[in-house]
């Protein structure tokens, strides 16, 4: 019943963009309404499956596609991913009515609507797919649809290039997935995503399964060395698309990793260890690269890499726990990771919506040209601040709860006598480092954009956006606060998802509610809010009507906005610490002499993997392939000669 609802909503979502293709304001609006309705229905179905205890529903299609059977399944894990998919897609559909209206964008808006619906539907389909074939078909539809979303603004060179890199990266990942499902079918005789028999995972076969899973799904998820497409695509896409991509699309990669790796009942210990290492690298370097960015959306994109790292840390802990036979680590690691999936979908979409509002109002995303928007865009500022506190993992919002679950897991692992457990426990200080760096980065992002005074004269007069953009942000901010203040409401859903993700576990998994006692968190958070309110009321009463004066600048008499901290100067100390990985490009003339005439400084942080390694290597490769042109003479006789030679060789061989 709920599966039918979800599949129906998915079909509606896929078709929702058709009216918009006709063009025109009314047709595009009709598509938007259809998308919101589809998102509402699908979200209701998924939430029903998630919060009401119901057995997982399955549907095998009566027709057969060649030799394959195509099936769909709605269990706790799928439902946990479906809820954010439909929520963020629906909110984005509303948001787009104001940022990408048909009136201003013409046919581009219609095309964007169409592919938006298609991509959202494909994401939902990947998650409910019960076998490899259905998953791959939906996966490819999602990847291609997302390409057209990224290049919506295709008049810009940078956008086209980002789209191209994305397309290349995603197909490299899909290739791995083809290999993965072929291997799985070879082992089990069917494409069905069912638990593997024990004893298969050792040796080369297991290693191949693991590496193909992590590489294939990891490209989409954006784990660290495979993240190359992510910063460019996220900053090039329209903001509501960035929100969907960063909030939910990259999580589909996480879904794949969790779904496939936990089909193996006896994973070797090194799987979990490898995932912990990948998570650590993605987490620390993701946030370090974010610190070096000047483009607000690019900064947020690198934070997606960081948060995927945190999620992968949780999955790694769960795998270590599965290998070591420690159900508590599995529950806490996977529970924390899955909650972080939901949380990241909420606050990252909120932040991208906020960044979109800033770009919409000012026409720039460059931190060094922004500033002081808190006075002209107070509502956007307040909502962005909620997202910034949440993503920094600070109490009393939702980001803290998921990181706290992970900490509980790591601190549980430290009691273990095994080297694997002690190694996993070492991730706790690392998570603290990631959290503190994220805090620094969001002090920078919020402080430079919304506080102080404007750093440049902008042509547009900034103002808060309208209700269609603010309302989706407000909904997300409320949900961030709700999970932070009452985490016990979502814990049963997490337990259901963990149970569905770990098939064939002996007995019921240990209850998160009992290990974590998250109810205490809720009480503490409420007490904390009360203290905040009390101090705030007192201080605002004491300072009412306080006189205003110019900022104290240590006796200097002509302060100017250009003297404020800039984004790069704010991050300079930490960038220095990570210089070995970031390799910032710095240009400028230092201050020289007693009466310096002119000095300048400019720094930027290119992506080390993409710009310093991958692109040069690929360019060289492209140059090498030029030699193949000698084969292409363009003369018919030569091609006939090729055919003849090939036939002769084949005859000789066969």
């Amino acid at each position, binding site marked *: 019943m709920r599966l039918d609802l979800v599949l129906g909503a998915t079909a509606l979502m896929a078709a929702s963009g058709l009216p918009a293709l006709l063009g025109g304001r009314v047709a595009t609006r009709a598509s938007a309404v259809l998308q919101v309705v589809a998102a509402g229905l699908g979200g209701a179905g998924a939430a029903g499956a998630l919060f009401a205890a119901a057995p997982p529903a399955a549907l095998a299609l009566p027709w057969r596609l060649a030799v394959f059977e195509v099936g769909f399944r709605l269990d706790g894990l799928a439902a946990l991913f479906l809820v954010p998919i439909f929520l963020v897609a629906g909110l984005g559909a509303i948001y787009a009515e104001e940022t990408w209206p048909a009136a201003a964008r013409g046919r581009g808006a219609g095309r964007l609507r169409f592919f938006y619906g298609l991509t959202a539907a494909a994401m939902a389909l990947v998650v409910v797919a019960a076998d490899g074939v259905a998953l791959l078909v939906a996966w490819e539809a999602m990847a291609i649809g997302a390409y057209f979303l990224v290049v919506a603004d295709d008049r810009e060179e940078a956008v086209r290039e980002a789209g191209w890199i994305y397309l290349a990266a995603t197909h490299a990942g899909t290739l791995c997935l083809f290999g993965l499902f072929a291997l799985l079918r070879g082992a089990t005789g069917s494409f069905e995503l069912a638990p593997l028999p024990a004893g298969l995972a050792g040796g080369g076969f297991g290693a191949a399964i693991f590496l193909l899973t992590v590489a294939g799904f990891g490209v989409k998820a954006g784990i660290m060395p495979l993240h190359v497409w992510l910063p460019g695509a996220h900053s090039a896409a329209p903001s509501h698309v960035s929100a969907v991509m960063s909030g939910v699309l990259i999580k589909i990669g996480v879904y794949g990793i969790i779904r496939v790796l936990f089909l193996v009942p006896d994973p070797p210990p090194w799987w979990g260890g490898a995932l912990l290492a990948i998570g650590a690298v993605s987490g620390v370097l993701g946030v370090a690269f974010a610190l070096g960015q000047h483009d607000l959306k690019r900064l947020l994109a690198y934070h997606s890499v960081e948060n995927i790292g945190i999620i992968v840390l949780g999955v790694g802990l769960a795998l270590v726990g599965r290998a070591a036979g420690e159900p508590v680590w599995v529950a806490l690691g996977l529970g924390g990771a899955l909650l972080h999936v939901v949380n990241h979908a909420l606050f990252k979409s909120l932040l991208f919506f906020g960044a979109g509002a800033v770009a919409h109002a000012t026409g720039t995303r460059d931190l060094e040209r922004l500033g002081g928007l808190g006075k002209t865009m107070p509502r956007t500022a307040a909502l962005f601040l909620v997202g910034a506190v949440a993503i920094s993992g600070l109490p009393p919002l939702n980001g803290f709860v998921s990181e706290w679950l992970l*900490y509980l897991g790591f601190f549980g692992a430290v009691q273990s006598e095994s080297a694997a457990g002690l190694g996993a426990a070492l991730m706790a200080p690392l998570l*603290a480092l990631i959290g*503190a760096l994220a805090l620094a980065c969001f002090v920078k992002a919020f402080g430079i954009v919304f506080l102080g005074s404007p750093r440049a004269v902008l042509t547009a007069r900034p103002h808060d956006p309208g209700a269609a953009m603010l309302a989706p942000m407000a909904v997300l901010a409320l949900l961030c606060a709700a999970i932070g203040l009452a985490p016990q409401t979502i814990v049963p859903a997490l337990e259901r998802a963990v149970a569905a993700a770990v098939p064939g576990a002996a007995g019921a998994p240990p209850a998160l509610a009992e290990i974590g006692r998250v109810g205490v968190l809720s009480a*503490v958070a409420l007490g904390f809010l009360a203290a905040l309110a009390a*101090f705030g009321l007192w201080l605002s009463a004491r300072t009412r009507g306080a006189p205003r004066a110019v*900022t104290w600048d*240590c006796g200097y008499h002509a302060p100017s906005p250009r003297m404020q901290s800039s984004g790069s100067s704010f991050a300079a100390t930490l960038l220095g610490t990570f210089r070995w990985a970031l390799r910032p490009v710095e240009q400028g003339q230092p201050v020289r002499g007693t009466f310096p005439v002119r000095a300048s400084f400019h720094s930027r942080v290119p992506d080390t993997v993409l710009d310093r390694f991958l692109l040069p290597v690929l360019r060289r490769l492209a140059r090498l392939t030029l030699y193949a042109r000698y084969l292409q003479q363009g003369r018919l006789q030569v091609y006939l000669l090729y055919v003849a030679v090939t036939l002769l060789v084949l005859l000789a061989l066969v």
Partner: protein
Amino acid sequence: MPSVLQLAVQTLLAVLLAPVLFGVIRRTKAFFAGRTGAPLWQPYFDLVKLLRKRTVLSSTSTWVFLAGPVALAAAALLGVALMPLGPGAAPVAFGGDAVLFVYALALGRFVLALSALDTGSSFEGLGASREVSFAALAEPALFFGFLALARLSGSFSLSGMLDRPLLVRWPDGGPAVALIAAGWFLVLLAENSRVPFDDPSTHLELTMIHEVMILDHSGPALGLVLWASMLKFLLFAALLVRLLLPVGESDAAVYAAGLVVGLLLVALAVGVVESSLARLRLVRVPQLLVSACLLCAFAFLLAARS
């Protein structure tokens, strides 16, 4: 409910006791400088004076400017609730409360750094940048210490980790605890902006960290920041004292005396450090913090071996 009563008593005591630690530090420094120094309760007078004065706001600032002191004070109060100051467990104790303790203080730092950026002052921007950068290196040291203590004590709550006098059981946990204490003392100096990380009494804004962030705060807002800083110092000092105090739950009176003497000794040690050391160059600060991390990491290794 006894824990509500305990919470009220503990908060009251912490609020009353915290300023005197600052008085002890100042008095120690005065002694080393050959001065008489201000009376021990001078910090109380300072607080009362600030809370009664009028405030002046920067014309650049918004509501975020006042949110900084408020969040810092609320976070410090939450920290007091989580800290086992009494002989038994803290008023609020649960598995994982150590994370909440660190992250609540981080929230205070987050909002205070924002309120510094809200003024648009170049100096306050520098201070905010340094504060969040150095804290990023101090937090792993705290967590390495927590890991080692969790391993030694089998608990992941502040009250459980600091419950048993581990130092006296020298062969088991003693060396690890000594290393943690050394690392955490450095963290205490860094988190509370003391010499050699920061000089709270310098007059050169360019070299300061914490003090320069609050240049524009005045009157009650500044009073709130000062009060919260005192509480924060008390919290970190209590962390050290509970770690090293060998009395445990034996006798309430002995325990209370030990705690108070311990807190005063920490303040005295900070005063001695401030009198005998110069502030480090800013580029050296990360190196010292990494050393603190390594001390605690070695403690973890020792604990893991046992």
